[in-house]
């Protein structure tokens, strides 16, 4: 035994191969698990690639081959994709629907940039984006023909409901959170009862009530159209959840800050908007993003109360006729659309979580 072999310390970092060995074959049981799970993984990947790419038919022109091959028949996307994306929107106006979607997506991306985070900038951005969307979709000015909300559908309807819920729901949530923290007992209890009741009900029942029951209990002149009612009800639902998130954010701020600013003679409005809310929002960004993600997915529920969003139009696209057998392809296509939005948003949320953790140690 030489001195060198005794005194040399083990390397601080394992080589890559050793890490791999440790994580795949650390003992015999681990090795068996790796082999079994690995072959399952390979089988899954191979069958998906086989189905989606190798044996697939890609163009509508070749649709007749769909019956012969074992893979996916993507021709159905070419044939029915427009129905899925645009619903019943007049086909010569599809560019407006596309542009409107892009505007909202751009607004979403812009509001993800830290430079845009401000209690004045962010609302301004969303009101501008939302306004442009409505003008593009509804028309009536700048020589655009009017397209009523009954004809809206597909992806742009999904995006519209989402944006509408966010734009209406966020101010409501701030109001509810402040009301629940109010020192006036009546305001506090009304807000608490309202929030807890809404949170204990399924979203579907609230939307159903808005679509079916509101015409019953609200005078005719105050009803608005069905889409508007549903978006307001959805916004109320979102606000009840978001209000609790904001309240948690407010509670995480040391009370000394509020007392100090009151001691300095700042008005209630200044304390709330300059001291409390900016910090509350920053502290709760991850859970806010999470709630936004859930809201985006839940827009699909409007399918049930008769709206033609992207989920409903997917069902309609395969509902009857020649393409009925290729339902998997359509549903996978729609699932991918949702996936892109939701996965992107949740990755962004994870990034924010890391970022805030770095800033606050």
């Amino acid at each position, binding site marked *: 035994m030489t001195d060198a072999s005794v005194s040399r310390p083990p390397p601080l970092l394992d080589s890559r191969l050793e890490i791999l060995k440790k*994580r795949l074959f650390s003992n015999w049981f681990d090795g068996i698990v790796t082999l079994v*799970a690995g072959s399952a993984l390979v089988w899954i990947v191979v069958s998906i690639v086989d189905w989606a790419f190798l044996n697939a038919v890609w163009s509508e022109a070749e649709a007749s081959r769909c019956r012969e091959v074992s893979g996916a028949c993507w021709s159905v996307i070419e044939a029915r994709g427009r129905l899925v994306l645009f619903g019943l929107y007049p086909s010569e106006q599809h560019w407006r629907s596309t542009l409107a979607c892009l505007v909202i997506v751009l607004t979403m991306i812009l509001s993800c940039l830290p430079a845009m985070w401000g209690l004045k900038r962010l609302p301004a951005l969303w009101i501008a984006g939302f306004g442009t969307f409505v003008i593009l979709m509804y028309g009536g000015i700048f020589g655009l023909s009017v397209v009523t909300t009954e004809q809206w559908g597909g992806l742009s309807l999904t995006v519209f409901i989402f944006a509408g819920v966010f734009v209406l729901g966020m101010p409501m949530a701030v109001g509810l959170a402040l009301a629940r923290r109010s020192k006036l007992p009546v*305001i506090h209890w009304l807000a608490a009862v309202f929030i807890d009741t809404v949170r204990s*009900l399924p979203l579907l029942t609230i939307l159903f009530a808005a679509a079916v029951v509101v015409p019953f209990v609200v005078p005719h002149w105050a009803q608005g159209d069905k889409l508007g009612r549903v978006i307001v009800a959805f916004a109320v639902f979102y606000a009840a959840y978001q209000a609790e998130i904001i309240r948690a954010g407010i509670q995480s701020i040391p009370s000394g800050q509020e007392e100090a600013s009151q001691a300095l003679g700042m008005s209630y409005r200044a304390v709330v908007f300059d001291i409390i809310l900016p910090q509350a929002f920053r502290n709760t960004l991850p859970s806010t993003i999470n709630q936004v993600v859930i809201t985006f997915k*839940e827009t699909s529920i409007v399918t049930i109360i008769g709206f033609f969003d992207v989920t409903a139009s997917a069902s309609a696209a*395969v509902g009857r006729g020649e393409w009925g057998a290729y339902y998997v392809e359509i549903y996978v296509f729609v699932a991918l659309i*949702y996936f892109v939005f939701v996965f992107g948003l949740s990755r962004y949320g994870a990034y924010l979580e890391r970022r805030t953790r770095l800033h606050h140690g």
Partner: protein
Amino acid sequence: MQRIIRNRRARGYLIQAVVLAASLLLTLSFILTARDNLVSQGIATGFGFLERSTGWPINFSIVEVTDRSPYSRMLLAGFLNTIIVGLAGLAGATCVGLIVGLMRVSSNLILNVLGTVFVETFRNVPLILQVIFWYAIFTHLPSPRGAIDLAGFGFLSNRGLMIATPSWSSWDLLILVVVIIATIVAARRFGGDRLLTKWGIGVAAVVALATALLFFGHDPDTPLISRPELKGLRFVGGATIKPEFSALLIAIMVFGGAYIGEIVRGGFLSVDKGRLEAARALGLSTTQINRFIRVPLAIRAMLPALTNQYVWLMKATTLGIAIGYPDYFMVVSTSINQSGQTMELLLLLMVGFLIINYTISGSMNWINSRLAIKGRS
């Protein structure tokens, strides 16, 4: 007037009075408009309609209902349907979530990858799309004639899953209750802290139950097990699990499993590394560390999030209406369409979900307080 507005307390009272008056006025106007509408449609208010017969059937129920059944029974059937698919879904989602969560915290790279892919795939697609997708899969299965044979256990066709069931008589419930009580008493009396005795009692109870059911549980002239058989165009015998139920159940299991998997993972990651190192330093084996340190601490960390998830999943069963599963919400909304008793039925709907939610969160909080580490808040 100016002085009142300046005065803090007076202003507080003023604001509260205005808000209270406004909300009361709003409620009053709702009630008045609703009454006007009811009168003009000739609908009598009150819960008298619950005794009227419905005139429409539902396609799935565990209590016997026909289109002659009164509204009260139909609502009960819907409520039970919600409970059944909800409980089965929660149990299934918890199993899936446990497996996926453990895969994600395991040291094995391939299990990590599989778990992550599962979670990211099923969590990022709306539940309703998944429900519709599974339903489409089930209804595109071959017809009963070409049904898929599941190696003697049953048949899978577009009418649902036909499974063999033991043909039990009315003695079953009695036997079941007796055996369960006997087991609990025996476990209390002899079990103590010894794990082996507890297992022994459990095995003995299962054996006793099986024997009792085998000899006394079924009518002498019926076969022991009722198997589904193809007669003409449909199956006779056994039990049928409808595709609506299966599709909703699988969707909730998979979607809920992805979320619960994350909760499980979070629970395990929250266990302080120092405690595990301390346990190792004390010479505990890996199994002992898992059993006495890691799992108990992880479960405590999971429970609050799990409660929220359970309540959420229970509410999500309402999506069954998209594929025609007659849960409580679907029965209520059909009743509203058919009878016009909007306000009463909406009240029943809210009460039903409040009961379900508070039962879940109440029992989870009870478990939580029982499990909480003693001597800590």
